C-alpha cells in the first residue's frame, strides 16, 4: 500500500509543479508529505508562491493564490489518470483577470487530448473556448443556446 501511495504521490507532485508554474506564469509550487517514510501517519501539504515571492504554506496565501493552488492540485490528479471528458464548474471564481485567462488558455491547450466543458461566469476564461453554450431561465424552464465561437471571437493562445 505504501509503495503504491508513494508512487502516486511522486507522479501527482510532478504534475502539480508543472501545472502550477504554467497557471502562475512562473510561480513555484510543490506538494510534500509531513511524514515521507510513513506517509499514512501525516498529512499532505501544499506549498505555493507567486513568481518572485517566497514559498508559503497554503493557509498563508491570498484568496486567489489558494484557489490557483487548489486548481493545480485538481488538474494534477486529473493528469495522473486521464479521462476523455472533464466537467469543471466555476473553478475560476477567486481569480483576477490575468489568472482566469491562464486557466482559459490551459483549458484550450489541454482540449487537444480531452474534451473540456467548463461552467464559468468570467469572460477571461470563456474567450478561449471553441464553442460557448448559454443557459437562461425563461417561462419557468431552463433553456440552452449554443454558439460556435467565431474565429475572430476566439482567442488562440
Amino acid at each position, binding site marked *: 500500500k505504501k509503495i503504491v*501511495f508513494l*508512487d*502516486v*504521490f511522486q507522479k*501527482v507532485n510532478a504534475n502539480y509543479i508543472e501545472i502550477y508554474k504554467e497557471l502562475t506564469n512562473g510561480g513555484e509550487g510543490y506538494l510534500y508529505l*509531513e511524514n515521507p517514510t510513513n506517509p*499514512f501517519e*501525516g*498529512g*499532505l*501539504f*501544499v506549498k505555493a508562491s507567486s513568481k518572485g515571492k517566497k514559498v508559503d504554506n*497554503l493557509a498563508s496565501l491570498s484568496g486567489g493564490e489558494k*484557489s490557483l*493552488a*487548489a*486548481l493545480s*492540485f*485538481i488538474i494534477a*490528479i*486529473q493528469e495522473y*489518470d486521464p*479521462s*476523455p*471528458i*472533464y*466537467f*469543471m*464548474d466555476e*473553478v475560476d*471564481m*477567486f481569480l483576477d483577470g490575468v489568472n482566469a485567462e491562464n486557466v482559459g488558455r490551459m*483549458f484550450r491547450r489541454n*482540449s487537444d487530448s480531452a*474534451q*473540456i*466543458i*467548463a*461552467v*464559468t*461566469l468570467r469572460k477571461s*476564461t*470563456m474567450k*478561449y*473556448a*471553441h*464553442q*460557448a*453554450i*448559454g*443557459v*437562461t*431561465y425563461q*417561462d*419557468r*424552464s*431552463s*433553456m*440552452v443556446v*449554443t454558439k460556435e465561437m467565431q474565429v475572430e471571437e476566439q482567442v488562440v493562445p
Partner: protein
Amino acid sequence: MFLKKIEMENFKSFGKKTVVEFRKGYTSITGPNASGKSNIGDALLFVLGTKSNKSLRAQKLTDLIHRNNSGRLSPYLKASVTFDNSDKSIPLESNEVTFSRIVKLSENNDDYSSYYFINDDRARLQDFEYLLEKAKIFADGYNFVRQGDITSIVEMTPVERRGILEEVG
C-alpha cells in the same frame, strides 16, 4: 470518444425537453445565476455516476424531478448522454452510444421506479455500469469538478488531502 449531447426532460429546472450539443475541444457554459448551468452537470452525474457518491444536491431521487411553481411534480424525468464511439472505447458495435436513465413516479406519487437504457434498449444497472467503467467515463475522482470543490480543497486538513491521493491510487 467524446460527448455529443445531453438530453434532459423534466430534470430539475429543465421543464421543457432540452438538447445540449457538444463538440470536441473546449466548450464553455455560461449564464445568469440559477439559470441551470450546474444542473446540466448534475444530469451528467445522474446518468454516468451511478456508482459515485457525489451529491446531486437533492435529498432523494424524486427531488430531481421538475417541479413547477405550484410545486407539482412531473410524472417522470429522463436524462440521456450520447457519446461518439468511433474509437470503440465503449465495447459496443455502434459508432454512437446513448446512456439513458428514467425515474418514474408511481401512481400514488409516494414511490418511484428507476430504469436504465443503452441505445433505447432496456438495460440492467450492472451492464450500464460495466460499459461506463470500460470506457473510463466519470469514475469517481476529479474528472468532474463541482462548484465548491476548490474551496473544499483549500479548507480541508492535510490528512484529508492525503486521503484524496490515497483514493486516486
